[in-house]
């Protein structure tokens, strides 16, 4: 990867471990992230949220070396410095329901130490405008829909032009149109900042990310470009008419044929009309996690 493997990179991690009791939610993560958008993929419980919270200085790591924006999150003063330059959208954010959208952002903006009142309010208006909530700024949070709340939380993360933007499942609750707007926004932000987003929406990753990091049981199992990940799957994806044997990942397509993902290149399959197809990122991701599953 082109990301500089130095301690001054926006994110630099070596052997990161986070323990919960006897379980390691992060189990030796090595990662260097530079500018641009990085997608974090992995099943539930793979450690995506734990990794993002560690990067966001919300969790202490149990072992390993971590530098965020060139600073040590373990040190109180440096942690505050990181937080001044950080935007974090937590998974399923919650709010004070009796606050208006504007007042809620004002509260967050005060905590973010954003300027005097005038500068703060101008920044709030700018953020509201970016996520398309200007018309609802004086609506109380409890009257906002799920998608609007998600955008409000995104607006809170965007305030203050953070250098590092950590988004935990940002597109949950957004309709297709809003997801396009979200993608435009993120790619615009990524020109100047480092964006890391965790998601189950693989289309978001294909559309947005220059880089994909796949986590499984607390370890990095893939780190590279989406094209590389797809390349790995080439030759492993088929479409056929007959029902495939058990033990392979498969589903029935709308035209009655079956799409088959198999880890073996020369899978002894039933004869008949069977054709190799170009894999998608989703195929590649499923294959990757499928490999891990069968190895268990």
């Amino acid at each position, binding site marked *: 990867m082109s990301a500089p493997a130095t301690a001054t990179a926006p994110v630099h991690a070596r052997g990161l471990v986070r323990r919960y009791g006897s379980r390691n939610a992060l189990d030796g993560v090595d990662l260097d992230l530079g500018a641009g958008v990085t997608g974090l993929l992995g099943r539930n419980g793979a450690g995506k949220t734990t990794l993002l919270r560690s990067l*966001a*200085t*919300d969790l202490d790591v149990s072992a390993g070396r971590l530098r965020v924006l060139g600073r040590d999150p373990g040190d*109180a*003063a440096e942690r*505050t410095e990181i*937080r*001044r330059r*950080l935007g*974090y959208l*937590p*998974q*399923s*954010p*919650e*709010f*004070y*329901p*009796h*606050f*208006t959208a*504007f*007042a*809620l952002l*004002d*509260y*967050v903006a*005060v*905590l*973010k*130490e954003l300027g005097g*009142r*005038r500068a703060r*309010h*101008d920044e709030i*208006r700018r953020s509201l405008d970016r996520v398309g909530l200007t018309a609802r*700024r*004086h609506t109380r949070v409890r009257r906002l829909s799920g998608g609007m709340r998600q955008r409000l*939380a995104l607006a*809170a993360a965007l305030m203050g032009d953070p250098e590092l933007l950590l988004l935990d499942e940002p597109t949950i609750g957004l309709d297709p149109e809003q997801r396009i707007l979200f993608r435009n926004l993120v790619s615009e932000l990524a020109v100047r900042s480092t964006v890391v987003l965790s998601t189950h929406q693989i289309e978001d990753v294909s559309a947005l990310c220059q880089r994909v990091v796949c986590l499984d049981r607390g370890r990095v199992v893939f780190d590279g470009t989406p094209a590389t990940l797809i390349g790995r799957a080439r030759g492993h994806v088929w479409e056929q008419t007959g029902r495939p044997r058990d033990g392979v990942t498969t589903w029935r397509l709308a035209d009655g044929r079956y799409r088959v993902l198999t880890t073996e290149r020369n899978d002894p399959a039933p004869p008949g009309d069977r054709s190799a197809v170009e894999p998608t990122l989703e195929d590649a991701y499923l294959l990757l996690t499928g490999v891990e599953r069968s190895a268990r």
Partner: protein
Amino acid sequence: MSWHLTPAQVDEYVSSTVDDVTAMSVEAHLMHCPPCRSLVPADEAWLADSWADLRDIVDRPRVGLLERALTALGLRQTTARLLTATPQLYRAWLVATVVVLAAALLSAHHLPRGSLLFAFTAPVVPLVGVAVAYGRGVDPAHTLTSVTPLAGQRLLFLRSCAVLVPALVMCTAAALLMPSPTTLWNAGFWLLPSLTLVAGSLVLSRWMHLSAAGAAVGGLWVLAMVLFAATDQISVLELFAPVSQLWWAAALAALVGAIVLRVRPA
């Protein structure tokens, strides 16, 4: 309107190069003629600035009574905002406090040795308030704000103040309404223990969730009460005796010292 100004006439008017009478004529016409008014050129930069200034005044979240009162008392506007943005649990705590203190007062007035109830509860009231003031689980917006620069210790202590002030005021008021608040002593004996418990939970919160710390300290207090009640040899009131107060003061000083040491480098 039977006639209209020419763009040239409007320009001359705007650039103040017309004589008084023409200016009067133009003005009289403009007042009632929207099409000619729209010919007046708009200085876009000025217009944008002017609107931004105006919008800043008309479009800001309404400031609550409490927040305004705090600002009037001389607090910084940002501090007032942080103090008044409190989880709903805090309001529930305020209500619960009133109820508990009222019950303690009632029992003090109507039951023999009823004033003991007040002695037990008054020191715990601020502790409970602080325990529900900050952190994951009790503050809904915590996830959204936990990694902001001001979050953590500073917000925690600000919130603690938001609890301590009303708690102490309410407890003092209750103490003054007790059956025999004849001396300053009777009104304030609970103060040092109560502050010590709060400080203890704040120090503990370094290693555990603030609510858990509050529960631990509160548990210790209840345990002490039970032990004293069981032994029968020393009265519970010994805990509030002048000598004990010295111990409370010493403990409080040590705990506050620990807190100050911890907050300062942050």
